[in-house]
């Protein structure tokens, strides 16, 4: 069952032609640069943009000939598209009313969803008074109030302050997990894609260039874009203090030395996420000397060449992907099985601490 979509839309000189499927209970992240056609895919599925060719099947039923309001689709617009002259509560109740609920049950449903998704937002507040994060929460509540069979989220974190992102990401993750139908998330943020989605669909110039789990795409990026965007090293673990200005991120696969974030209380913190760009990882033939606080010894597992660059996967603890030039690959004789050292500076590890920290990516 789930969603089966074949979408062909021409807009000016841009041709969008994609075919993909999403299972019930699966989250697919549609990832691509601005202008790649991500939002158009959502709009076509929702019926806001007519299909030139193709089909959309939801739960085994063709829905592409149905009217926009009859498709059973929940689309959360990028900025929320909340009605500015209605209160937060009326916005959410609107969805239930549009579905046919009476006023009383519609309000009750709105209150229940708001208490669950936006407990800190005053139900009588107007959308223009809300922060970006609050707007997204209300938008999500409104979409869920219409009881959709398919959930489409368009860049839910794009209009949100960096400091509010980790918390909203957790809300999104719970909401996605609680939704039993297929769900599609449009994003250009690799952290968002990799932490929220079961599978990635990469979109470039209106075409799908790669589909796979986050691990598959990270390990085998099919294009330069995939490598640049999704190919970050991602870690999750407990951050512990380790001397002046430094900390250790303990993950199940190994430890990383990191710079202690300014302003963060010096105590052990769990559920900390960290990323290191592959280009920031240096490979050495011998044990490196210098200022790098992280140096790991391991064997090369794989070398993937894309253009003039190569992505080298090493079985260090934690496992890493480094990006080097093809010149370095030849000079160092990098091939599966070769022994190398991989290093990166503590300050190159970007931390995301739940609740407090700047979210840099």
């Amino acid at each position, binding site marked *: 069952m789930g969603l089966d979509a074949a979408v062909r839309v021409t807009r000016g000189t841009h041709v969008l032609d994609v075919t993909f499927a999403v299972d019930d209970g699966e989250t697919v992240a549609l990832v691509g640069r601005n202008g790649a056609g991500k939002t158009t895919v959502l709009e076509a599925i*929702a*019926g*806001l943009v007519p299909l030139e060719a193709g089909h959309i099947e939801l739960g085994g039923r063709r829905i592409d000939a149905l009217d*926009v*309001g*009859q*498709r059973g*689709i*929940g*689309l959360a*617009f990028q900025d929320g*598209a909340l*009605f*500015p*002259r*209605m209160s937060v509560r009326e916005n959410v109740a*609107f*969805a239930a*009313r*549009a*579905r046919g609920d009476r006023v009383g049950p519609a309000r009750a449903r709105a209150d229940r969803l708001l208490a669950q998704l936006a407990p800190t937002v005053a139900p009588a507040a107007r959308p223009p008074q809300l922060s970006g994060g609050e707007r997204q929460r209300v938008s999500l509540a*409104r*979409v869920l109030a*219409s009881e959709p069979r398919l959930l489409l989220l368009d860049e839910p974190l794009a209009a949100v302050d960096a400091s509010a992102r980790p918390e909203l990401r957790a809300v999104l993750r719970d909401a996605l997990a609680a939704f039993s139908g297929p769900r599609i998330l449009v994003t250009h943020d690799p952290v968002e894609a990799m932490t929220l989605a079961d599978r990635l669909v990469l979109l470039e110039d209106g075409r799908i260039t790669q589909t796979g789990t986050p691990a598959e795409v990270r390990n085998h990026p099919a294009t330069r874009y995939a490598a640049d965007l999704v190919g970050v090293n991602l870690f999750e673990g407990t951050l512990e203090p380790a001397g002046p200005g430094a900390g250790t991120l303990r993950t199940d696969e190994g430890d990383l030395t990191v710079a202690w974030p300014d302003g963060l209380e010096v105590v052990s913190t769990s559920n900390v996420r960290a990323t290191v760009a592959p280009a920031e990882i240096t490979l050495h033939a011998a044990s490196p000397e210098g200022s790098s606080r992280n140096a790991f010894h391991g064997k090369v597992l794989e070398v993937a060449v894309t253009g003039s660059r190569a992505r080298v996967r090493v079985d260090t603890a934690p496992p890493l992907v480094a990006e080097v030039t093809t010149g370095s690959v030849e000079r160092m004789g990098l091939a599966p099985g070769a022994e190398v050292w991989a290093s990166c500076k503590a300050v190159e590890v970007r931390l995301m601490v739940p609740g407090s920290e700047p979210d840099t990516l």
Partner: protein
Amino acid sequence: MRRRLPLPILVAAIIGAAFVVLPVVALVARAPWGRFGDVLAGDGARAALRLSLEVSLAATVLSVLLGVPLAWVLARREFRGRSVLRALVVLPIVLPPVVAGVGLLAALGRQGVVGGWLDRAFGIQLTFSTSGAIIAATFVSMPLVVLAAEAGFRGLDPRFEQAAGVLGASPAYTLRRVVLPMTAPQLAAGAVLAWARALGEFGATITFAGNLQGRTQTVPLAVFQQLQTDRGGAVALSLVLVVISVAVLVAMRGHIMGGR
């Protein structure tokens, strides 16, 4: 530092301002303050004032009821001849009112294209009736509602309607709960302008509906008639319209004049 204005510009500006202000000042200067109450209490004036109020309000309601849906269609639907229709709809704004009246006679008069049928089938005669005065006023004021409302609808981000549609709301429900509340300021501005225009309507009314005291003689028509016999009375009635117009301008200054 403010630079001095060139003299010719300053002179032209002063003359221009005086030209616009002088007639109003003259009305005040020549007003028969002593018998103001008598004039307004007279039968003709009272009937004209009441009729003007009725006709202009009825015309405003009709203009909104017909003009807003028309504006919606013009703003949100694409069809062949849309730009032609838009031009025709606003034509009454630039059309000489007398021509509008002649057109209305040709269409709705007793021998008119539709009027003849109305007369034969239902015995309805619009000419020389209050209904006719309302129709004449609606004809000239509805385009103002259409213009203001269409501008409001076009200025509204279509995403709000899309969001409502995806949530399952019918177009009618979306219009009522989302579009109309969000464009209320423009709709109100259009309605007030239409009302002011209907209140001042003269040419189309006198041509199509005639000048019958108590039935079609609104204040502008009464002023015109009184001018032949009682200049002071005409001035007094005119001042009433000036006061109403100024009040409208003051109430609408935010919308029409961009504030300040």
